[in-house]
């Protein structure tokens, strides 16, 4: 057997799995989104009709789709910057020569990342319980009135964002920490000799050197946060008053509660298109920013 044939034998199992259980379904999803596949079609395929872009058109006219998109964008727009700031802050602290017991702190800060979303979301539901929750008790000590964290439409999403930041910041922290450690120490040395303050060192050395890492982490975090689902499923069931219904939550309900698989596929593709557009825009803006910097310099 020559290496060329061997290569295809080695590739076959993985490619088969990815082809049959990922690529094929993705193509089928596109086709499905152009049909009215529902409970009747599930029972008998002859009930299936081609509706072209009908599902997309109907979705764009449904207030629930727009509100789900609005909640998702809210979660991404507030949650991603907060998560990245927490990650960067923690990484800067861990990277400081003044920090003690670094391995312990790194492990402790990273621990929430490996936990199961469902299990820790349950914990948060109790910690943010209106009557007996630790959060309201602590605020009460400061004289703040109890907040109905998960029952008030204004507070439910902020609570979920706080949860997501707590759960996820450790992941990017580790990536940032590696990025910070890769910055040559003599850059800071030179800046110190020039009398640059800590803030100026951060602004003119740390941030530019970390630029590519920040961009990559930002894009990955944005695409991850667009896929909000388990948190509202466990903490609020999409409520109160649908204030935490995300696009993916809508897809799940549309597809597996009401069995409108055609319409649910259209939701999935719209989400994909939006994610793609947003991340492409981020890349573009970052390139233009880098280009402008280059010209200024």
């Amino acid at each position, binding site marked *: 057997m020559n290496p060329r044939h061997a290569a295809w034998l080695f590739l076959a199992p993985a490619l088969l799995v990815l082809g049959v259980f990922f690529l094929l379904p993705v193509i089928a999803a596109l086709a499905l989104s152009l049909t009215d596949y529902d409970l009747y079609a599930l029972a008998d395929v002859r009930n299936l009709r081609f509706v072209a872009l009908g599902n997309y058109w109907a979705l764009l006219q449904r207030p629930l789709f727009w509100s789900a998109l609005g909640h998702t964008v809210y979660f991404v727009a507030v949650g991603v910057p907060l998560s990245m700031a927490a990650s960067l802050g923690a990484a800067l602290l861990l990277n400081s020569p003044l920090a003690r017991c670094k391995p312990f702190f790194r492990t402790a800060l990273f621990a929430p990342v490996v936990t*199961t979303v469902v299990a820790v979301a349950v914990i948060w539901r109790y910690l943010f319980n209106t*009557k007996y929750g630790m959060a309201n008790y602590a605020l009460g000590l400061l004289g703040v009135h109890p907040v109905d964290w998960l029952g008030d439409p204004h507070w439910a999403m902020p609570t979920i964002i706080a949860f997501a930041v707590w759960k996820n910041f450790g992941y990017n922290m580790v990536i940032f920490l590696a990025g910070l450690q890769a910055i040559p120490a003599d850059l800071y040395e030179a800046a110190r000799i020039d009398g640059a303050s800590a803030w100026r060192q951060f602004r003119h050395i740390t941030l530019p050197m970390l630029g590519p890492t920040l961009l990559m982490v930002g894009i990955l975090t944005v695409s991850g946060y667009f896929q909000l689902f388990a948190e509202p499923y466990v903490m609020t069931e999409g409520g109160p008053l649908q204030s935490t219904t995300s696009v993916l939550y809508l897809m*799940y309900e549309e597809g597996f509660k009401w069995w409108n698989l055609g319409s649910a596929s259209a939701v999935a593709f719209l*989400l994909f298109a939006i994610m793609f557009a947003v991340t492409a825009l981020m890349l573009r803006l970052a390139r233009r920013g880098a280009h402008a910097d280059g010209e200024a310099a």
Partner: protein
Amino acid sequence: MSPRFARAVVNGLLAGGAAVALFPLLWMLSVSFMAPGEASALPPPLLPAHPTLHNYRELFVHAGMGRYLLNSLLVSSAITVLALAFNLMAGYAFAKLRFAGRERLFQALIGALVIPAQVAMLPLFLLLKYLGLVNSYAGVVVPAMASVFGIFLVRQYARAIPDELLEAARIDGAGEGRIFVQIVLPLLKPIMVTLAIFTFLAAWNDFLWPLIVLTGQEHYTLPIGLASLAREHWQDSELMMAGSVVTVVPVLALFLALQRYYLEGLLLGSVKG
């Protein structure tokens, strides 16, 4: 700012951050040993007055947690073993074996990473229904048997294997299968450990797909079982915390034991990509 003060600020902030990160987990552990109803009091108690295993007994005897735990172990182990085998083979082929279209095929796989998994889920459900795999362990395992991320990770690592080593073995008359098993696999051991933890943790923590494909309680994995338990037993916070402990502790322990490999994989999969 004096150096002493700066040191106090840095370490104080780190300690505060660690406390915020760990508090919910420690609180969960503590409440899981409380008597029913004990946590619903003001002020909220931090430690159980009389630690009891009542909640754990209740979970395993009446709530079927033992079954969920076994299901999770079974499904996650099966996924880990199969995905490890398939991703190792494919990653090695992309890194070290020459064939027409290799780079283009690999680029296409990487390109597929932009498609979120949820897009495939609806037709995948129909496909598995057609194959009779809905509500079975296989329904969870089969789609997870290979991953682009895993292949990518192995390829990155396997590229460091010197070609001369493989050539020498070929000249000695060793077949490609034997080269893979006897020469390549031992060299890939570190990345095997890394990939195994990643795959196991992801399988253990996965929620949306098992929720869709597992329709009967007898096949529920821990996260699905816990979520359904939460809807039934919302008032029993002590019982729910015990359930969370059972779900979280195995993965947390695995991570603590093999932390170095996990963090290395995280960096290999992101920064160097």
